[in-house]
């Protein structure tokens, strides 16, 4: 009988899955591993370098305060504003640098594409939650901090199924 064999095959398929490993990633005890350091852009060649688009990192010794990142973001999310800083850099005549509001940023990375001086990259850090909205606005000195992210879990496929870790 067609119906009976259909039911039995469905039951068999369901019971078979009781012996396959679970697929869930048990975050936050385990975190994913990312290859590379984050999304970067090479203005000379005109292409980007693959990586996760997380928090930005700003290199103070390269930024000239040209505002191209802020202009690129104006039509998208208006998350980058230029602020005056206390430091004096030789290449930064106007003494301004970008500050990014992560409450508005959509992490599209078009600001990284717009920077011609290798000053703005993105990193692997995505855990940016906070208790207040005002602490989501990252000042240029906060953006210069290198993130510490250590995740080491990947998808592994073996004979008992795929699983994380």
């Amino acid at each position, binding site marked *: 009988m067609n119906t009976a064999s259909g039911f039995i095959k469905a039951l068999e398929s*369901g019971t078979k*899955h009781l012996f396959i*490993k*679970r*697929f869930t990633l048990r975050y936050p005890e385990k975190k994913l591993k990312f290859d590379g350091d984050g999304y970067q852009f090479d203005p000379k060649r005109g292409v980007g370098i693959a990586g996760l688009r997380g928090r930005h990192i700003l290199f103070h010794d390269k930024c000239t305060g040209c505002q191209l990142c802020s202009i690129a973001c104006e039509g998208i999310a208006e998350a980058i504003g230029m602020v005056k800083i206390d430091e004096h850099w030789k290449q930064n005549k106007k003494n301004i640098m970008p500050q990014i509001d992560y409450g508005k940023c959509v992490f599209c990375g078009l600001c990284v594409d717009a920077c011609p001086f290798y000053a703005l990259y993105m990193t692997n850090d995505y855990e940016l939650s906070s208790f*207040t909205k005002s602490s989501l606005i990252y000042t240029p000195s906060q953006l210069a901090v290198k993130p510490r992210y250590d995740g080491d879990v990947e998808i592994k496929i073996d004979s008992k199924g795929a699983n994380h870790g």
Partner: protein
Amino acid sequence: MGSITPDFRFGNLVGSIIQLVLVILAIVTVLILPMIFFTLFFVPLPVVNGQVLTPYLFFSMVVDPSRTLPIVKFLMHTALFKAAIFPGFLFASLIAAATIFIERKLLAKMQLRVGPLYAGKIEGIFQLLADGLKLISKEIIIPSGADKPIFWLAPVMFVATSAAVVSLIPVAYGWVVADLDVGLIAAFALLGFFPLIALLYSWASNSKYPFIGGLRALHQMIAFEIPFFLSALPVVILSGSLNLTEIARSQHIFWNIFVMPINAFVFYISSLAELERIPFDLPEAESEIVAGWLTETSGMIFGLIQLGSYLKLYALSALFVILFLGGWYGPQIFPHELIPGASSSNIPLLKIIALDGLYNAVTVNSIFWFIVKTFGIILLMLITRGVNPRIRIDILLHTGWYKLIVLTFINLFVVLTLIYGGILGPGGMILPK
């Protein structure tokens, strides 16, 4: 949220603990102690060993080892213990709670994910407690124009009827809350009450989606009651009695499922339809009629209905085990005495530890096998939930009214042939009665 959580101060913790203790002391003094004395004045206390058992006598007897166990045994055989704790409401509720947890974890494993994980240290074992607390703390919203008395009464009636069905189930020989001579018919009569509750509740909700759900529940449950009765008919003919304990005892040689497998299958499908489980959960079809007749339940009313639903699941699985799977019979794996040689020795402490007089190996064995078989049937019902989609109402009614009744008649004729051939039944070759 813009607020920052306040820092932890030990003085605040001590203060709140003291406040809690004082409140509990106040409630105990003002409410509970008067209730105890009131009860003791007016309730007739039992007689044990020729003396009326007042509470003071009870406490003094407990410390005398030779009289503790008879008192405990006496208490275990009172009607209140049987109805409330074992094999009554508390036992069934524990099995229902275990079923809900196992269902969630089993479905999660089949779907390659983790079920409840964080409530409780070991793999989310306190999830049910957390859910219960959440349901208690929610507001109960009554729609405008709803019929208030029925709206409040129907969930309570649901749980009461489910508990009434549970009270008919014998767990071992002599361990049943209500030993009726027409136990099987009483069970079916109580099951016939559920469509009425669903319809009344859906009508009292004064809303369109519950209305459709209530009508579907009515159609579904009534359509599957007839195959339900008919599939249990050959069991009654074979064992010669309607008493559930007698039906179970008549299977001590072989189980009924070997003679009537088709009827067992029909009973299983009908009980899935009575319980409104997937694949038959049309009255609660989430994607068509929001939540069916349960749409307007919120808070503890929903909790009561879930409790009643899972009590009914335990009751129908236990009924299946008693009718077809040989009740509580199984190989004896418990030893006769807990500590060998304890009952003939003279050391009272050893007698207490070995539960002399209280521990009956046959009863404990019966209870163990009964629970194992019931959980086996419950597991089958849970796996069926995992692999099937929902059925449509016209296919359901077609199956219930045409196909299942025909199948029960086939098996009925087979059993009748075997009985008239003199092989089975009272006066037959295999099953002398």
